[in-house]
């Protein structure tokens, strides 16, 4: 790493921050130590420095001081640079400290730590340790998270390969991403599918290969009424119709099924068995679940559920 470069960038920031007037490139070269003598070499280095400062989010402004100026100059407006005043009560600082730890090793961990450091630099005493024994974590194991977050942030369209459920080959999708949502531990991206011409939800773990930008920043417009939270909730939620199953369950077994039971009593004529009525929403899913209990559960009604369970069990015979 270059100590000289850090010194030069630091001096440049201080120089531009403390000047109310726009400074021309030549004035900057005179004030800031560390630039090369020849003007061309200086210009090249200065251009790179400006890019690096902007990368850090330092608001470098260009402008002229008066109509008579022929050359544009540079300055950093203190108002645009400075974090506005923020004060937190001790309980607020405590939850902030907890929030900063949520990302841990995940994608935005560095950003959370950097943000916390700036807030501490503003005088906030956010302790890293807070309410004992509570550790919330957010993970981003899916490789697609990073590029999709940047695409949402910068409003850029993307393309990726997607392995939809029940399809054998991944398909290429073109998406204008509106948002990313973690639901029950899984990440989803919501946006406008350019090929289908409508809103779609994709699960990040089913994205195969790289996510590639297909347009510049600002190309995506999130429609005013778009609700990414609701889109993922709808995509994930079960159909509303509530059905009732009549099951015979062996004593001491089928606890998972009994938790949804509306009635549960000993089965007449079947010693050691209970008669349980339970509600369910989806025959296929519920049949899979019942099959997992093997010989401990028998479906009495409805018939389609009973047939689906039998078919599952036959399939498992091999």
């Amino acid at each position: 790493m270059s100590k000289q470069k850090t010194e030069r960038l630091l001096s440049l920031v201080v120089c531009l921050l403390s000047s109310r007037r726009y400074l021309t490139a030549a004035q900057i070269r005179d004030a800031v130590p560390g630039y090369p003598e020849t003007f061309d070499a200086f210009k090249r280095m200065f251009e790179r420095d400006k890019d690096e400062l902007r990368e850090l989010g330092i608001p470098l402004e260009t402008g002229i001081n008066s109509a008579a100026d022929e050359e544009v100059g540079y300055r950093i407006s203190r108002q645009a640079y400075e974090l506005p005043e923020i004060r937190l009560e001790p309980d607020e600082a405590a939850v902030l400290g907890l929030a900063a730890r949520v990302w841990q090793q995940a994608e935005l961990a560095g950003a959370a730590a950097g943000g916390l450091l700036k807030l501490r630099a503003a005088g906030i005493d956010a302790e890293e340790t807070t309410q004992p024994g509570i550790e919330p974590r957010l993970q981003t194991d899916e490789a697609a998270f990073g590029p999709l977050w940047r695409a949402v942030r910068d409003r850029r369209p993307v393309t990726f390969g997607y392995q939809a459920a029940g399809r054998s080959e991944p398909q290429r999708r073109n998406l204008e991403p509106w948002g990313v949502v973690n639901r029950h531990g899984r990440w989803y991206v919501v946006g406008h599918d350019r090929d289908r011409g409508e809103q779609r939800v994709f699960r990040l773990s089913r994205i195969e290969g790289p996510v590639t930008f297909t347009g510049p920043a600002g190309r995506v417009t999130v429609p005013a009424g778009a609700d990414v939270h609701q889109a993922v909730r709808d995509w994930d939620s079960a159909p509303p119709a509530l059905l009732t199953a009549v099951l015979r369950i062996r004593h001491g077994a089928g606890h998972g099924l009994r938790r949804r039971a509306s009635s549960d009593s000993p089965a007449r004529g079947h010693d050691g068995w209970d008669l349980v009525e339970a509600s369910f929403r989806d025959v296929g899913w519920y049949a899979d679940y019942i099959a997992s209990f093997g010989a401990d559960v028998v479906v009495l009604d409805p018939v389609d559920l009973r047939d689906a369970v039998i078919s599952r069990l036959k399939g498992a015979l091999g």
Partner: protein
Amino acid sequence: MSTRAGTATDRLQRLLALVPYVVSRRVVGLAETATTFGITESELVDDLNMLWCVELRAPDPYCPIDLSYEGGEIMVSQAESMDRPLRLGTDEASALLIALRMLAELPGTQDRSALRRTIAKLEAAAGTAAAVSAQVAVQMDGRAPADVQALVADALRRRRRLHLSYYVPGRDEATERDADPMRMLMLEGRAYLEAWCRRAEAVRLFRLDRVLGIEVLDLPAQVPDEAEPRDLDSGLFRPSVGDVQVVIELAGAGRWVAEYYPCEETVDLGEGRLRVSLRTPDTRWVRRLALRLGEDGRVISPSELASQICADASAALAQYA
């Protein structure tokens, strides 16, 4: 921002935060500051020297920053327009706001009012950098009843033993046990209790949505010294050497298994078929999984497990005969 990383811009960010950090506290210890910034004291002294040495040559030469760090305490007496930190960037504001909003979704564990106030203040301070964070959300699994979470949090706070009725789906068993709580985890969208289980005499992880009943006992929690919290960075479920290796072939509709369970190896067999292998100390749940998968999954090895599954299916079908 990784404060230890070596690039010039990383260090610049640190230097720009360091000045306001000291200014806002008037006087602050070297050791404490080094800890906050994640650097050694000698690295911190290098930083302070670099700040102190900043010199602008024109129009008149002057040193904009004056500071001292004698007797282990840092003071900044002059900071020339650098006394406030840089605004939050979009990533920084979003990372914190997303996390705060996620905490606000957790039932019963945190001070909701403090979270609401913090979110509002941070949104105001971040300005436009906060906008994108509304396009990201975390929805927690709400199946764990809020009262279970509240009782676990209460036991943690007061260091009390818990009595749990706990459902183990892999064995379809409701179990009774006392447990000394160590911490509550929010992981992969679910709430877990990590505790010293007095029945197993080992550290156990309990999914709160599988708690059938819970009682805070009037006994102090006694977590033995040998109880090691799990290293969460290596994942929740760690296979161990004594585990059985299970190989399953999955057809299209059974592919979810590869996403849902931590598989050691996943091989694409073409035409939508996968072969996964995973390790487990207890194969009873695999037998249940196989019944559930029906023809969409086939246990290939161990062969004894495959024959057990076949017997399980026959026994279940006999009920319908």
